[in-house]
C-alpha cells in the first residue's frame, strides 16, 4: 500500500495499491494504465496557484499536480494515450461558509480542464455533495474504491 498525503502524489505498480484518506474539498485523482497495470494517485487541495513566488511543493494545486502525475506515469512506461482517470472528493463540508463551500467545485472544475487539455478521459467519478471520502486505487483491475461514513463503500 502506498499512502498519498494531502497535497502529494505518487505512482506505483502491482502488487501495491494506492490510498489517500479523508478527502474533504480536496480531489483524489487516480490515473490508471490497464495494459501495464500501474497507476498514480494525487491528493489535490486547491485549483491553481495565485502567488507564483511560492515555490515549495506546488503539487497541492491541480494545475501542477495533474501534468506532474501524467509525467510520472510516462516515466515508468505508461504513455498518456493509455491513461484513464477516475476522481472523487470535492465536497462542500461547511455548507454555510460560502468561501469554503465553493473550493470543492473549483477544484473539480480545474482537474477536469487539466485532464481535457491532456486528452485523458474521466471514466468514473464521485464528486461534490458534503461528505468526506477515503479513496483507494487498485492496480489489478483499476477499481477505484470510495469509502465514506454516509454511503459506505462505493466501487467505481
Amino acid at each position, binding site marked *: 500500500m502506498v499512502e498519498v498525503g494531502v497535497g502529494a502524489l505518487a505512482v506505483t505498480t502491482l502488487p501495491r495499491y494506492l490510498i489517500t484518506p479523508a478527502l474533504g474539498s480536496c480531489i483524489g485523482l487516480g490515473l490508471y494504465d490497464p495494459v501495464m497495470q500501474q497507476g498514480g494517485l494525487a491528493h489535490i487541495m486547491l485549483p491553481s496557484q495565485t502567488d507564483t513566488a511560492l515555490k515549495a511543493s506546488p503539487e497541492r494545486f491541480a494545475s501542477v499536480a495533474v501534468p506532474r502525475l501524467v509525467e510520472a506515469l510516462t516515466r515508468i512506461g505508461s504513455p498518456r494515450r493509455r491513461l484513464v482517470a477516475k476522481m472523487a472528493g470535492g465536497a462542500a463540508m461547511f455548507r454555510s461558509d460560502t*468561501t469554503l463551500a465553493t473550493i470543492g467545485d473549483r477544484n473539480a472544475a480545474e482537474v477536469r480542464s487539466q485532464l481535457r487539455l491532456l486528452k485523458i478521459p474521466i471514466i468514473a467519478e464521485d464528486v461534490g455533495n458534503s461528505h468526506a471520502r*477515503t479513496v483507494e486505487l487498485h492496480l489489478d483491475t483499476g477499481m477505484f474504491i470510495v469509502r465514506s461514513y454516509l454511503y459506505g463503500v462505493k466501487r467505481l
Partner: protein
Amino acid sequence: MRLERLTELQMDALREVGSIGAGHAATALSQLMDMPVGVRNPEIEIMPLGEIPGVFGGPEQLVGAVYLRLLGDIEGGMLFMAPRDSLLSLVDLLHSRRPGTTKSFGREQEALVTHVASILGASYIAAIARMADLNVLPSTPSFVLDMAGAILEVATTEAGMKAHSAMLIRTAFFHEETKIDVALFFLPDQDSLEVLLGRLGIA
C-alpha cells in the same frame, strides 16, 4: 509574515494570547455546564499542511466540528472539534443528565453543540480582541459530523493559498469525571498574525 521566521518571543506572545482565549472559553463552558472544566496549556504548532489532517486522532476518526470564520481586523478561523462520544457526553452534561444517557446524535443535539461551540469560539476571540484592541467578529457557525482529517484539511485550505504550512493554536478541555475530549483550534491567517503581533508591540 513567514511563519518559519517567527521569533521565540513572538511565539511566547502567541502562546499567551492562546492561554487568554482558552481561559475565557473554559470559563464559558464551566458556566454552561454548571461545573468546573479544566483546560490544558495551549499548544502552538506550525505544521506542513500535509500533516494537519492527522492531528486529531487520525484522519478517519468520526468527529463533530463547528467552524467559525473570523471577520474584521484579523482573519482566519476557529474550529471546535470533538469525537462523537464526547459530543454525546457533552449534550448530557448540558442537560444535567448522567453521561451515557444520550445515545444518538440528531438535529436537536447538533443545534445544541453548534450553539455551545459558537459561544466558546466567540468568548475565545472576544478575549483576544479585548486584549489587543481589535475588532473581530465570528461568522455564523457551520456544523459537520464526519472524518477529522477532511474537516481539518478544509479548515486549513485557505492557508494553502499563501503558504505550505499553517499555524494551529490548540486548546484541550477536559472534565474530571467524564471522558470529554474537546479541542478548540485557533487558525489565524498568516497576514493577520502580523496585525496581532503589531498590536501587542512585538511585530
